[in-house]
């Protein structure tokens, strides 16, 4: 217990802000000590800054065709070179990055929200559990990519449909993570204590069970984000995702596949960005797991 000076006379609320500050400082310190989380988050911040600044200050369009300058190697004019139509690869990668990250991010958020709701209610009501978890089992039986292709094939290849496809594919894992940790929490004595006090199921679920599932949940969110980026790239690569000429990391890779022996830069740059973002997210997720683990959460000053 950090500050043990008697503070009877001071205002209690002041203690609260003081404690909050102390906890925040502790968290920052532990975050800075956690190498994985630090590296992961710096990679992500770098990528986000890179993409957004480039979008703001770039003058070349990702769609402008220049047949005279086809397949130019990286130079001072075209930093990442040009593609088969002579389009500036740098601007395509940056725009594609925006599309890929935006698709991945929105899919992740929707997955997280729906997954939380399904997982929580499934853990609490046995009847719902049977129905919801059998549906999830059904969805999990298909390989991710296959299911996503099937969905975009039905709905048509548009970014919004890619988001839907990724969400549908990823919800079962999300819901299962939430459900399994909620099942453990549900058996804790403090939940029984709540019941003994007459708490409603809504209060029990959202005010008490949900906050305790947060740490595995947040870690899972970073994992889903990372795999959403890969899935989006995969879909676009296969032509089932973001349609050409709109750029995304996946379809740039596809364009580069044909000329991989003549123009390495067309596969190299989007590839590096995919790897960086996935790596960054995974490292960040691993770091968060250590950071949020209650066993290491005991006041170490």
């Amino acid at each position, binding site marked *: 217990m950090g500050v043990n000076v008697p503070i009877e006379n001071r205002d209690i609320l002041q203690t609260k802000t003081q404690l909050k500050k102390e906890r925040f400082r502790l968290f920052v310190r532990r975050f800075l000590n956690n190498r994985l989380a630090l590296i992961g988050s710096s990679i992500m911040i770098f990528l986000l800054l890179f993409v957004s600044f480039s979008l703001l200050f770039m003058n070349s369009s990702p769609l402008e065709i220049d047949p005279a300058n086809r397949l130019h190697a990286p130079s001072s004019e075209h930093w990442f070179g040009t593609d088969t139509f002579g389009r500036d690869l740098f601007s395509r990668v940056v725009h594609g990055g925006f599309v890929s990250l935006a698709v991945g991010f929105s899919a992740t958020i929707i997955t997280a929200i729906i997954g939380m709701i399904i997982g929580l209610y499934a853990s609490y009501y046995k009847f719902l559990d049977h129905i919801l978890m059998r549906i999830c089992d059904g969805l999990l039986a298909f390989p991710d990519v296959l299911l996503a292709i099937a969905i975009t094939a039905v709905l048509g290849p548009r970014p919004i449909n890619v988001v839907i496809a990724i969400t549908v594919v990823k919800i079962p894992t999300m819901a299962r993570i939430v459900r399994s940790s909620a099942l453990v929490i549900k058996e804790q004595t403090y939940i029984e*204590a709540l019941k003994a006090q007459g708490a409603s199921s809504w209060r029990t679920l959202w005010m008490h069970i949900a906050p*305790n599932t947060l740490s595995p949940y947040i870690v899972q969110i970073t994992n889903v984000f990372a795999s959403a980026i890969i899935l989006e790239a995969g879909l676009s690569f296969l032509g089932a995702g973001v349609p050409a000429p709109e750029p995304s990391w996946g379809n740039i890779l596809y364009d580069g596949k044909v000329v991989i022996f003549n123009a390495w830069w067309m596969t190299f740059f989007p590839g590096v960005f995919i790897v960086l973002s996935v790596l960054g997210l995974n490292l960040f997720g691993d770091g968060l797991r250590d950071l949020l683990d209650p066993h290491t959460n005991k006041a170490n000053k």
Partner: protein
Amino acid sequence: MLQPYTDVENKKQEHAKPLLQVRNLKKYFPITSSLGRHVGDVKSVDGVDFDLYEQQTVGLVGESGCGKSTTGRAILRLTDPTEGEAIYNGRDIFKLKEKEFHKIRKDFQMVFQDPHSSLNPKKRIGEAIIEPMKIHQIGTKRDQMDRAMELLLKVGIRKDQFYRYPHEFSGGQRQRIGLARALAVNPKIVVCDEPVSALDVSIQSQVINLLKEIQENFQLTYLFISHDLSVVRHMADQICVMYLGKIVERAPTDELFGHPNHPYTRALLSAIPLPNPKIKNERIVIKGDVPSPIHPPSGCVFHTRCPFVMERCKQQVPSMKELTAGHYAACHLND
């Protein structure tokens, strides 16, 4: 500070009117096969009767699996009893609708055994104490906070700890916080389920004293569940000894310790290791283990381990007999 027990007891028994009457309480947990067919029951509680008198403590003692915790949980309707009734204020609380029971729920509170899992690790302890007041919509936010702080002081936690998290407290302190939470809605009856058995001896005595002090100040009625006879002796006015879902002996505390009647009670008493190497008590070692509550023995449930078993015990279920005033036991030896 505390009045001597005997006085209190005498006074109360004069106008004894039970606050809660539990009759023939049964709780069977069904066992189903993998195909969902009902194949049997775990007879966790099998016909239990007792009365709780105002501001008194009834102790439920027994070994693990005897159904004492299930009894406590059934009274709070944390588990639905299979059979039986519990009369409180003239009404059977087991028959009340969930909504109606909610109105009187705050009269029944519980203190739990495990200090580590009985508080939500993500909630500040102040919030934990306010929570029951929020649920029952008692007072304004300001009132709730004032009351929570007052309760913290009463159980011996400093006010400025209000915003701290459970993991910053030791087991004994958490148990105090758990008690404060139970007191928040001004209950009449508090079920204490092994409240001190997870604590070290030096902390245990602190909490026992606190529980007694709080009982006096808040005029509480306790149902005190424990496996430890010596702890129950200090808490309870009346003790029920349970074995395999049944109460085998019920008596006022001093009577039970002075003249234990049932062979199981005697064996329990003699099994307690005394902290005095000079006294080697005559031990009644009972053989074997507690039988499974799925197929409890016929006749007297204790006959498989009883050192005084007779032919009759195996067939006939003994009934509760009053031996002296208020002292009941179920044993064929008393006939």
